[in-house]
């Protein structure tokens, strides 16, 4: 039982990271109807920026904040320059472009920072808590995610710009008639998603170590979480991400060797999707024609 609870809690910690990235995916999907396959690599690149700052003796939380700002701006630039031209192109073109971005960021990181694993500092001490049920590091990761979610909730719920972003995602034509500049909302959305992804990257890097391929598996789990929750639902994405994190840990502990974890995840995805094609909280996908 103790082992079980331990695995659940550490699963929640990694689930929180998947949930963040899943949320970033869902935000962009809702706004532009496309899946950003580069989300994970963008997060990885942001994490390298944080790593450089920390190495330059910037205090951790200052480096964290600065990285979020840089990622936000970077995300906006990417939307403007790379995504805008294919916004109305067929789905396949958009998929190919975001995969292209994925490759470019991966290669850029490999070229700039090499493929060797780097240690990334954790802002939280690694002490066991509550009779070793969870570590203070896990708790820290969960807390950061919760704070971020709360901030996002307040932003989208209570600020005018957050409301305008929701309106632009839901009904762009009507949003324009209200005087909302939909293009600008999309740009901000990409910026926000990049910043959320950066948070996920910085939280996961102390666990996985930093290298250009670090986010490959994370993206897949986040994607699974997003689909599990229903790719149109932000709340679903968070819950889906947590479920994936816990399941991954339990499967790894009790069922099979960890090399097959991804394969099991794949099978789980297919099973879930066959029975609930729109995920747990999502609405039916309308095909873009």
């Amino acid at each position: 039982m103790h082992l079980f609870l331990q695995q659940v809690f550490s699963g929640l910690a990694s689930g929180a990271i998947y949930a963040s990235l899943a949320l970033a995916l869902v935000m962009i999907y809702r706004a532009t109807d496309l899946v950003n396959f580069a989300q994970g690599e963008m997060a990885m690149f942001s994490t390298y920026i944080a790593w450089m700052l920390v190495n330059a003796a910037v205090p951790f939380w200052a480096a964290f904040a600065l990285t979020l700002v840089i990622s936000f701006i970077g995300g906006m630039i990417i939307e403007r320059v790379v995504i805008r031209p294919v916004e109305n192109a067929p789905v396949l073109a958009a998929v190919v472009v975001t995969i292209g971005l994925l490759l470019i960021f991966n290669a850029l990181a490999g070229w700039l920072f090499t493929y060797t694993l780097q240690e990334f500092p954790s802002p939280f001490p690694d002490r066991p808590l509550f009779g070793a049920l969870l570590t203070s590091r896990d708790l820290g990761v969960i807390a950061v995610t919760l704070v971020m979610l709360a901030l996002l909730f307040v932003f989208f719920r209570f600020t005018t710009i957050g409301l305008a972003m929701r309106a632009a995602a839901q009904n762009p034509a009507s949003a324009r008639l209200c005087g909302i500049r939909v293009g600008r909302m999309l740009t901000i959305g990409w910026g926000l998603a990049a910043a959320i992804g950066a948070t996920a990257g910085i939280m996961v890097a102390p666990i996985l170590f930093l290298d250009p391929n670090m986010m490959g598996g994370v993206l897949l789990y986040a994607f699974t979480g997003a689909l599990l929750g229903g790719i149109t639902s932000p709340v679903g994405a968070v819950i889906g991400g947590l479920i994936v994190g816990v399941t991954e840990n339990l499967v790894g502990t009790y069922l099979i060797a960890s090399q097959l974890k991804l394969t099991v995840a794949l099978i789980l995805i297919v099973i879930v999707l066959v029975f609930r094609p729109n995920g747990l909280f999502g609405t039916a996908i309308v095909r873009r024609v």
Partner: protein
Amino acid sequence: MAPILQLHAVKAFYGAFEALHGIDVEVEDGGMTVLLGANGAGKTTTLRAVCGMVRSEGDIVFAGEALQRRSTEQIAAMGVAHVPEGRGTFVGLTVEENLRLGAYSRAGKPHDAMTRMYGYFPILADRRRQQAGALSGGEQQMLAIARALMMAPRLLVLDEPSFGLAPRVVEAIFAIIDRIRREQRVSVLLVEQNASLALELADQAYLIETGYVVASGSAKALSDDPQIRRSYLGY
């Protein structure tokens, strides 16, 4: 009184297809103009041309400023509030959020304006926390009009506000439109299938057929025209 909106020789295009072949339409400041015509005649296209939602040629002047080459967002911010076909409410947002969005392009707190709208449409006040998608058709139409009025517009553009609604609801909505237009001094450009009701309220009317204006004049003159009575009023 100078017209607040003037269309001169306006053509509109969907891709290469020309839907309007050079039409002239005016809305007096504080007046109400109605566009009549069969389905597919180009009425909605005219409204879309005004709001920059289709490619157009010719002159469109609103309050002394040319609207060409301006984006829909800019035109909205200038004081043109468009309630599109099918209402265009944000069904996933609450009634109150919809109204807040209406005030997006205006500075300051939307609180006073919102109170005024709840005065016109008390049912919306009761449902302010509900999702717009849960409202009935008539309530959604009211919400759409209220949202447009939140912009404190000088021109209200309405595309078939009676569409799909019961006659009693239609009458209620038109009564409120008439009242608001006098109290808020807002001009109205209206597209409407219910010609008899529209001609009662409007002061100017245009009849559009296959992309041309085929008749125009005061609403009274048009409602007395025997041809129009036969084709559009049914008596």
